[in-house]
Every structure is written in structure tokens, then in C-alpha cells.
């Protein structure tokens, strides 16, 4: 039983058709003690089917600690969104509802390699001299 309805899948396919370069989702998961890992795996598999330029690469968190550490991942389920480079975009948790939409946005931005931000915003970010980390807390609805 798919998670995405046929109409949602069609909309996602249309959105992903706008990808201009390949994106890889490094997905970290584990089999035990993780209620949302399996549904996360399923929705990512469905997502990868909908975009020719989108791939999902599964990593076992407990067996691939070094790889996880490389991406700064310390919990599961987790996704690193990787394009021509690693822009430092991560998702923790089952990507459903609002988080799913954010993931789609991130995939498209990374694929284009362009933030789409206003000129003033770009100027402010260009002037950044020290690291800026953002943790955005969301819920599915």
C-alpha cells in the first residue's frame, strides 16, 4: 500500500520534472528501536520512483557510524540532501506532511544550485563571516 496517493504522486512527479541536475538522498536508518524508519524508507522509495534525477542511498546507521558522522548525523531516520556539492541540508524524522514539502523544496533548490533568495538576502549572507547553523523544528501538520 503506497503512502502517496496517485494524485499526490502525480503532483510530486510534476515538481521533480523541474530538477536540472541529479540529487542524491543519503538516508540513514536502523531496523530496531525506530518506529518511523520503515515508513521513512517507504516514502523515500516512492519519491525516488517519481524523479529521474533523484536517487536514494540507504545507510545502516549502526553499521556506518563513520559515514553518519561525516554528515553530522546522530539520530535516525535522517536524510542528507546532496547535489553537485553538500550544501549542509539535513532532515531528521519521517518526512511527512510539512516536512515532506520542505524536503521537496530542498531537493529542487539543491538540484538547481540556486537559493532563489532576494538580492538583499543574498547580500546579507555573502557578508557572513562565521558559521550559521539553523535547526528548524516542524510538525507534519
Amino acid at each position, binding site marked *: 500500500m503506497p503512502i502517496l496517493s496517485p494524485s499526490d504522486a502525480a503532483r510530486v512527479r510534476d515538481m521533480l520534472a523541474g530538477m536540472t541536475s541529479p540529487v542524491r538522498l543519503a538516508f540513514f536508518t536502523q531496523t530496531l528501536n525506530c518506529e518511523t524508519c520503515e515508513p521513512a524508507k517507504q516514502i523515500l522509495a516512492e519519491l525516488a520512483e517519481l524523479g529521474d534525477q533523484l536517487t536514494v542511498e540507504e545507510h545502516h546507521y549502526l553499521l556506518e557510524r563513520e559515514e553518519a558522522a561525516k554528515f553530522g548525523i546522530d539520530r535516525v531516520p535522517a536524510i542528507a540532501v546532496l547535489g553537485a556539492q553538500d550544501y*549542509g541540508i539535513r*532532515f*531528521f524524522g519521517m518526512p511527512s506532511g510539512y*516536512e515532506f514539502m520542505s524536503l521537496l523544496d530542498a531537493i529542487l533548490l539543491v538540484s538547481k544550485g540556486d537559493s532563489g533568495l532576494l538580492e538583499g538576502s543574498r547580500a546579507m549572507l555573502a557578508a557572513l*563571516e562565521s558559521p*550559521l547553523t*539553523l535547526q528548524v*523544528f516542524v510538525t507534519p501538520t
Partner: protein
Amino acid sequence: MAVESSKVTSTVVGANEYPDLVRKYQVSGVPKTVVNDRVEILGARPEDDFIRTAVGAASTLTP
């Protein structure tokens, strides 16, 4: 923002799944953004306002 600047990293956290992080950062409503582990931005804000606040926080705090 992360796509725009190599100094920016962005993590989206499903609040329902990580009560430890919700407690640590005292999340009582969403969306809530935590900048460099310290400064909070509550709710959705206009782009320029959000970025000005975040960049301002980063220039005075290191993560």
C-alpha cells in the same frame, strides 16, 4: 540559505519524533528555528526579517 552560503547549514527536525531535542531547545510551538544553538526565531517570518535576525545572531555567536 544553505544553498546560498557555504557557511550555512540547515537541519529540519520532526518535533514529534525527538522529545530530547524538543526539551533541550524548549520547543512549545512550530515552526521554531534555533540559530547557532542559542537564538530562537518563532513562527514564520518574512524572508528579509528572518535572514537579518539569523545573520545577526551568527555574527555575535559561534555554534
